């Protein structure tokens, strides 16, 4: 365990403060201990992929980073701001951290363009014309500017997820969180979303991504974190982790993943 913990210390990519620090984070749902002493540091511009069996606490951990869930013990510091009950801290974090969900969660009563401009207008207080220009530039980047006037229900799953990415980017976040962004998609749509994410990674965005797409992890991740039963069991560069797993738990997990894919 102590060997595994030491691997979670990041290779410093730059000398500025880390983007995300989780220090001995613990969380319980009632009597169930879902995060156990989770310690993880994500450097600026680092890409971290989180994997692990179902119920291991991956979603819970990533949702703690932008405080969709609250932790009960330990410290979470995002871009220099510690997450507490303070509402101003919450506002700051929410502006700087974008999130993409497994089930897209687009706003069905707003057009694609309105989905993208909502937060810039109401949170960043941006003039409408400017917000629309910004939104169109991101919609072009995810390659669906022609859908701007449609409603989410009229788009395919892959297109919806790309809109969700554009919507998050419109807030110009410094950090992007992804919680299984492709697992609700049909196989033929997974690629278009992964391609968008690879493009985003190339721009130097700090990313934390829960996914079981091993190809994506190998291509993009600086580090892969393996979680099981609420603990960070192993962490390291993708090749090392996948080709030379240290623990039985990771070996078992990898063998199951390979069987499924």
């Amino acid at each position, binding site marked *: 365990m102590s060997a595994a913990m030491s691997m979670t210390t990041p290779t410093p990519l730059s000398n500025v403060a880390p983007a995300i620090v989780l220090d001995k984070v613990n969380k319980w749902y009632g009597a169930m201990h879902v995060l156990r002493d989770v310690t993880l540091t994500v450097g600026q511009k680092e890409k971290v992929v989180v994997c692990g069996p179902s119920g291991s606490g991956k979603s819970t951990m990533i949702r703690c980073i*932008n405080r*969709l869930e609250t932790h009960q013990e330990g410290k979470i510091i995002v871009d220099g701001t510690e997450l507490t009950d303070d509402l101003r801290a919450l*506002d700051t974090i*929410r*502006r700087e*951290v*974008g*999130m993409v*969900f497994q*089930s897209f*969660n*687009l*706003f*069905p*009563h707003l057009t694609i363009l309105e989905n993208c401009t*909502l*937060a810039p*207008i*109401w*949170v*960043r*207080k*941006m*003039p*409408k*014309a*400017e*917000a629309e220009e910004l939104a169109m530039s991101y919609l072009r980047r995810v*390659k669906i500017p*022609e859908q701007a006037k449609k*409603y989410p*229900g*009229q788009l*395919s799953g*892959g*297109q919806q997820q790309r809109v*969700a990415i554009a*919507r*998050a980017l419109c*807030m110009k976040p410094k950090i992007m969180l992804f919680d299984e962004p492709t697992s609700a998609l049909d196989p*033929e*749509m997974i*690629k*278009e979303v992964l*391609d*968008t994410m690879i493009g985003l990674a190339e721009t130097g965005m700090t990313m934390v991504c829960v996914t079981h797409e091993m190809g994506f992890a190998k291509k993009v991740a600086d580090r892969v974190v393996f979680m099981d039963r609420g603990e960070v069991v192993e962490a390291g560069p993708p090749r090392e982790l996948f080709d030379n797993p240290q623990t039985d738990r990771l070996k078992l997990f990898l063998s199951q993943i390979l069987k499924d894919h």
Partner: protein
Amino acid sequence: MSGAVVDPRLHAARAAPKRRMRLSWSDPKFRAIVWQVLVVGILAAIVAYLVHNTNKNLAARHIATGFAFLARTAGIPIGEHAIEYDPATSTYGDALIIGIINTLKVAIVGVVLTTIWGTLLGIARLSKNWLLSRAAYLYVEILRDIPLLLQLLFWYGLVQTLPSVRDAFAVLPGVFFSNRGIKVPLFDWEPAHSWALAAFLVGLIGVIAWSSVASKRQAETGVRPKTWPVALGLLVAFPLFVWAVLGAPFQLDMPIKGGFNFRGGGTISPEYCALTLGLVVYTAAYIAEIVRSGIQAVPQGQWEAAGALGLRPGAVLRQIVLPQALRVVIPPMTSQFLNLTKNSSLAVAIGYQDVVSIDQTTLNQTGQAIEGIALLMAVFLVISLSISLFMNWYNARIALVER
């Protein structure tokens, strides 16, 4: 992306072919037309028969058709009248107008109160507080299962067990509960009050104008100017200022307890109390269910996605949750408002003189059954259509959704 999705525009060039109808029973289009012609034909035959039959009967009984009876003296005693009424001189027309006003009094107050009470109940039903949510659940289940007529009779009975005037409860200074209904202080209306009211209405228009200016300014600069100080100034300070300038008159007509009855003040009759209370308490059970399902129809993920974008809870509610919940809630809510209005005709059972009760008396005295029924249908049609139109307008305004 690259070839994964086929661009639909590449295939849109050729128009879809038109389908021709075949004159065959196996063609659904042909079948639909035959059925429609048949139904319309049967309806027309029934109407023709009824009209013919009625005319024959009326002629046999020497009853003149038409609405001339409305101008005749009514002679119906009416307890609760919002406009001048004297049974000896007033006409059937006057009596019916009073009936309409009495019905509207129940419908409007009932709809407003049932919306408030039902919404509170619906929210209570979703509360994390076990006792509160259970209590709301029981309320809804029990009240929906008891026939409305029974409930109205119960409330009327309850109102009549209130103490007599001599022992009336004084709830607030000048407000008395007794078996004669509720007594309230009246307010001496003076021109200054009319001017203050006019100032309020002008202020209301000003606030609407200001909020559209605010939206425009927000679109241009990104910053939405504050609305509430302007609203406070225009809706409160301005009317108060007008009232003060005109001498700030304020005179209350307080009810005073006499031996057998009150002197002065205004009265809300026991019949009106029982009817409105009964309708509100009953309809609110349905509204509660509608509100509950509306709130539950918006998935948790919508809150999370909006929150993750940095929107505060208030903004999430206004921009994301309410528009989606209202879309689900408004159509069934409209039909409950219509139900409440139509159910107000059960007034007959507890002696409240609504339009149905007065119309029935008119019909008995004059024998103009067809005109009486036609009038009643017209009245309810107009009320119902007004409610529907308003709700549709509101729905289109607030919850316009295209999918």
